[in-house]
């Protein structure tokens, strides 16, 4: 079982994800070769152009981006222990999570979750439960940067 959780400065790009994953020394694709993996799921969270504005009765207001603040090292540890718990509960072959810290512009990626398992049901259930728990328990805050 491969578990990786990485916090990356700024928006997530294919390059920044690959670099951070390489630095971890772990490769989730290695779980593919033995034929036990039947499903992989990759989820990307992207910054949308508007957010409900708290001072305008929740009406959407235009954004430049979001500013992600992490409480370190608790955020990093929290992502990793959550990933491990979800992997064990759903019997995953691998789980890799990347999360941004700092400014991420509209249309850019701030969160990526990549899961592999024997069957699709586990990948879908694990994705939903990981994201729900992350938003509840991992000390990462987003603040709007209004346009």
């Amino acid at each position, binding site marked *: 079982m491969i578990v990786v959780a990485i916090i990356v400065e700024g928006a997530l790009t294919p390059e920044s994800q690959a670099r951070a994953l390489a630095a971890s020394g772990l490769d989730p694709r290695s779980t593919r070769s033995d034929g036990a993996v039947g499903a992989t799921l990759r989820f990307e*969270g992207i910054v949308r152009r508007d957010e409900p504005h*708290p001072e305008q009765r929740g009406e959407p207001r235009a954004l430049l981006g979001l500013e*992600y*603040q992490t*409480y370190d*090292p*608790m*955020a990093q*540890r929290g992502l990793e222990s959550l990933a491990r718990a979800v992997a064990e509960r759903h019997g995953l072959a691998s789980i890799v999570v990347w*999360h941004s810290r700092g400014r991420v512009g509209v249309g850019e990626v*701030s*969160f990526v979750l990549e899961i592999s398992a024997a069957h699709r049901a586990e990948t879908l259930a694990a994705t939903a439960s990981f*994201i729900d728990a*992350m*938003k*509840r*328990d*991992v*000390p*990462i*805050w*987003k*603040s709007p940067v209004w346009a």
Partner: protein
Amino acid sequence: MTVDVLIFGPAAAAANTDRAPVSVREPATVRDVLTAIAAQHPGLAFALDGARLAVNQSLASPDTPVQPGDELALISLLGGG
């Protein structure tokens, strides 16, 4: 004693600071600190609904004792991802 509680995100923006000092009577628990934040920082009331406290970088239960020198952080209104 007076303890500093680290605050983050929208709560920090509203309070215009990243730490809120609160006075609590010793011996104090996590519950006492959360009650003291509400009383002494009305501007943070919006962030206290469902909020928890981390003590030394771990989520703590309401009965956890708080000692001088502990690192306290208000874990409220999360929303990573």
